[in-house]
């Protein structure tokens, strides 16, 4: 069985005109070290697929298995813990906490399991060094550029060495050059950490750099 297995995934939303089906039997299977870019028109269900895979949303039908576990069988607290241990997120809007420093933002997922140990701080610093922000660890998000913020978000997604990293339009708000560097970073780090990477993007350029490229069409994922 694959490390990530999405089978026959459907998702409906209520609307005045009746239920609106966004995903209709989407399938996806991945193993560690793999990276998939998913593209598709607006409203095609890219982000919905991503959020369901990231356990932030539930499917109307179908199944999701991550590392052999169906996360939707867990209760709220277990699911949060599962997400913390196995999944990392990178959003289009970097979602850094403005009140925390760069280092603290990276360490944020560690808070779920209590206090942060020295080794974890060292690992965060190492990651930041890896993305070229070693001299910015004490800075606040407001003092960073857009690309720098997104690199911090990437570090935050990887701090717990997750099995799965989900990136939702990670370069959507960035200029071309910065977008390219962030894309490269995501792919490199994903590879280095032997993690599965799913990236939802409108950018064909970014998608083209991924080993696997899926398109969502009529609610189904086509590779």
């Amino acid at each position, binding site marked *: 069985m694959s490390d990530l297995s999405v089978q026959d995934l459907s998702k409906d939303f*209520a609307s*005045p005109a009746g239920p609106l089906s966004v995903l209709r039997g989407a399938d996806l299977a991945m193993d560690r070290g793999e990276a998939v870019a998913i593209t598709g028109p607006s409203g095609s269900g890219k982000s919905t697929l991503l*959020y369901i895979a*990231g356990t*932030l*949303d539930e499917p109307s039908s179908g199944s999701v298995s991550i590392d052999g576990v169906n996360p939707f069988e867990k209760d*709220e*607290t277990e699911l*949060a*813990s*599962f*997400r*913390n*241990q196995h*999944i*990392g*997120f990178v*959003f289009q*809007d970097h*979602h850094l*906490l*403005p*009140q*925390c420093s760069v*280092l*603290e933002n990276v*360490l*944020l*997922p*560690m*808070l*779920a399991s*209590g*206090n*942060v140990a020295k080794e974890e*701080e060292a690992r965060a610093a190492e990651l930041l060094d890896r993305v070229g922000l070693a001299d910015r660890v004490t800075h606040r998000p407001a003092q960073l550029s857009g690309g720098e913020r997104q690199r911090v978000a990437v570090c*935050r997604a990887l701090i*717990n060495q997750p099995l799965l990293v989900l990136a939702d339009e990670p370069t959507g708000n960035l200029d071309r050059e910065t977008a390219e560097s962030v894309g490269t970073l995501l792919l490199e780090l994903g590879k280095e950490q032997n993690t599965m990477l799913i990236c939802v993007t409108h950018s064909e350029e970014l998608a083209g750099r991924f080993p696997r490229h899926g398109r969502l069409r009529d609610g189904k994922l086509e590779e």
Partner: protein
Amino acid sequence: MNSKTLILRSLTYYWRTHLAVLLGVIAGTAVIAGALIVGDSVRDSLRQMTLERLGRVDHTLSSHRFFRQAVADDAFADDETYSAAPALVMFGGLEYQKQPAEHEDATYPTVRVGKVNVYGVDDNFWSMMKADEGSKAPTAFNITLSQRVADQLRVSVGEEITLWIEIPSSIPRDTLLGGGDDQTSQEIILTVGEILREELGVARFALTPNQQLPLNVYVPLDTLQNELDLQEITASRRNPTARPARINAMMVAATRQSSLLTEAQRSADAVNESLANALTLEDFGLRVRKYPERDYFSLESERMILDNATADVGHRVAEELKMKQSPVLVYLANYFMHPDNPDAFSMYSIVAGVDFEDLDASPFGPFELKDGSLEKLDHDDIVINEWLAEDVQIGAGDSLKLAFHMVGDHGELPEEEGYFDVRAVLKLDGTAAADRGFTPEVQGITDVDDIGDWDQPFEMDLDRVTDRDDEYWEAYRATPKAFVSLSTAQSLWSSRYGKLTSLRIAPADGVALDEAAQQFEEKFLAQLVAKDSEVMKSMVLQFQPTKAQGLAAAAGTQDFSGLFFGFSFFLILSAAILIGLLFRLAIERRGRSVGLLSAVGLAPTQVRRLMDTEGVIVVLIGGVVGVGAAIAYASLMVYGLKTWWIGAIGTRFLFVSITPQSLTIGFCIAVIIAWIVIRLSLRLLRDLPTRGLLAGNTEKPLSEDDQRERGRRATKTATICTVTSLVLVAGVLMGIIPATEAFGGFSWHVVAFFLVGIAMLTASLRFLSAWLDSDHSGAVSGSGLLGIGRLGLRNASRNRQRSVLSVGLIASATFVIVAVAAGRRNPAVETPQLVSGNGGFIHVAESSTPLLYDLNTDEGRNKLDWITDDEPEEAELAKKMEVIPFAMKPGENASCLNIYQTRLPTILGVTDEMIQRGSFKFADTRVERPWALLTQNHEDEDGAPVIPVLGDMNTLMYSLKKGIGKTISIPNDENPDYKLKVMGMFDGSVFQGMLMMSEANFRKLYPEQVGYQYFLIGDRRFRRDGTASHHFTPSETQKIAEVLETRLGSYGFDVEPIGDRLADFLAVQNTYLQTFQTLGGLGLLLGTIGLATVMLRNVLERRSELALMRAIGFGTSKLAVMVMWENAFLLVWGLVAGTISALLAMGPHLLTTGADVPWLSGGLILLLVFLVGMVAALAAVAEAVRTPIVSTLRAQ
């Protein structure tokens, strides 16, 4: 990095948002802890006032009878623990007429002040009051006035004033020999020697606790004694009878102070024991008179009549000493006459009631018969002596006419006649029938040589006194000429004062008269002064631990903590809503961050705990700062009570008292409330999906069906709340909901008021919620300002909960302001009406000296020296006037004017005439003739009599804490002398602070209270059916007051328009309402701040929309109109909802007479709130359009 770091970072980063919440918590803590401090301050101030008012005085004794001044020395001179000050404590009236200057041609009106506390004191009292440091005890003919008296008289030091004071009478004035129509008041001209500043405790000295400034005057004790014939008289040739100086009050100071009531009671017991050891029979007005010629002694009273309790003790002691006794009741016959021969008569003779069995043998008998028999004497039988038989020319078997005076209710002396069957004629000389000991000694009567020299208080027809009558007097003095059975005499002539004039007692066999008399006297006195002695109680010859009682009473009738808590309820509610609203805004603003925490794997509970901890820290800091603000707030409130709201408690002697307990309790309550509000706000996170939060959505997404369902539920709740409110209001109006106490001093009407208010406010908010959920709220159509306005309304529905909370803030504060305004009453608008607080009367009056005579008759007025022959206008007014008198037993002021805890309120005795007349508005007294309830006597479970009383609802519910059907033990629950049962309650009446019982019961309970001291004055032409009425004109009303005060000045008659008296009571209520309104205003301020914050937030969130609208051609003014429409909509909804809720909740009150709603000022306040709210919205718009369009659009 740990959660603490994150919390700290959040606290500092979001300090502006937290500051707003912090300010809300500070406001809440300040209000809650402040209310507790106000309560402490009032309580401690009352304690302090008690200590200042009483100086070193711990125990006081104030009797209605007079006893030897030497008792003070005898009891305490050698006592190191206690010192005593003798005093006279009386009521009096003052008059002052300013004298014109030498060349001034003016006459100043006479100023009168009635019901003044007159204290006859010496240096002992002055030093006990610690007053000798700043002033001196009055001497000679100087009088010292308290500042309040001086202010009312408008007199200054050195000027002369007149003091009218009741002359003490040893014989009750409403008995035959009591001096009813003699001069009853003494006029004393005194010079004002000093005016006591209010700050001096002695200026506020009072035996009963009351924070209001008393009307006190101090006169030298010896001067007052001389003027009232209470001075010491040493025996002289001219006046062989020596007499000691007398007083009626004593103050005792203990060297060891004790504030605990139980300890103080023990101390009072010790003082009472010392007193008991010092008292003699003379102090009880009793004497044992020996008759050695017949070898017996007689127990007599200087009051002429032995009260029942004293007679019972005498009877018991004589029995214990195995002494034979013969009780006697003598009465004065105006004449005896042959029934058919008016020329055969005998004038002014004594008739005695005796038990003939006692007279069989020596020393009381035997009677020697000249004719007839003493066997089986009947009720109508009489036995006469041979002198009388000769005068009236009759013998045994004949009928005899006897005429005597009865004493009427109003002091009138109608002559009654009776016919008796003569059963025997007694020999006189040398027999028991010639015994002078039947009649007790009465000064001015039995000790004068000639009938013509009698000092009797009634008119005598001396022309009919014959030589034979004079000869009898010369030979036999007051020896009875006739005898009836004791039961016959008692049925005709006993009074509430007693049923015996003497108890004749013979020594036991073998005991000499002197020794027997001494044995009796010692044992009798010991029983008189015993603890719990009825005689001591009835004479009030007992010390009370006045200071300890005052300190206990300082706990206060009204819990000011609770009161201010109640006042601040809506302010606290506003602060809580504001905290909730601001915290909610803070959470909404941080929705994305919350979503992120959830996304990275923090469990929902962890996320909430982080936010919760943040909130708690803010709340705790707010609580700590709030405690400081509470002190400032309480200081402001106490300052307000001393100045702006002085009508509420009537004293300036308040200070701020801060206790750690109150601060801690206030802190805890405020923190807990704020924390609960924060927890409730955090609940909104529970149902929000992480994905939504990440996208910035903080409202739970609902399908249209769900939204419609929510709207339906809101409409349903609103309808239920509205119907409930209407039912409650109808229940109050129809009398189904009683005005009795529900709990904690709150009546069911008050509970209904709060329920209606809360239900209506809820209904209005639920209706708003439903409307915002409906399609109507979203319909944008039309053009121009109307179209823009509709867009504004649509915006209001975008953040439904925000809008509803903002409206809730405004509505609850408006509710307070309108409800308070609607609660105001103005007695001035209340014309005399039967079913009202004035009962159809125009004046209420009180007199310092009781009046015996009927002011409704020429005869009564004449006896009071009110002769109207030369004053036709006065005569006319007097004829139109109706005066209803009430007997009065002065007690503590239990009205809302007194904030001390009261135990023994003033009691009024209601005449049958008033019971028949009825009138006044009753609360929850659902019988056709409530006054008649006073005539229904009851018994408790032990069969003891329970006396029915009526009282004002305010007095019963708030001062005495007793509702209808409850019993009040007098003097206290632990050791009741008797019980009163509340049968009915007046509603907002002039009888506040008093209890009413029938005159018959009153006279039984308080036989020593003579005449009438409380009066209601109305218009005789007033129609009792209330359909039409005839009232005095305002000038006639004023004239009546002037005439009564002038004519009855010597009685200290003080008349006050009934509207003014009611206004004084209502001033308290209205002042409380004003306090409430001020606090409601603060609530409205918080509401406006809340709404302004919400509007600013709404506008800032929509900055891009507004920029877009500007970009597509909307001018700034149009955008302003759009935002203002939204703001105006919410403001008006809140103001209207609050106003309607308040008016409905106050509906029952508004339909009563005297409701005086300040519509204009209330409307202006609401308009002002509206304008301030609109200006705040304008400021928000200005902020939103300040940023250039392009940068705003780019920023988004």
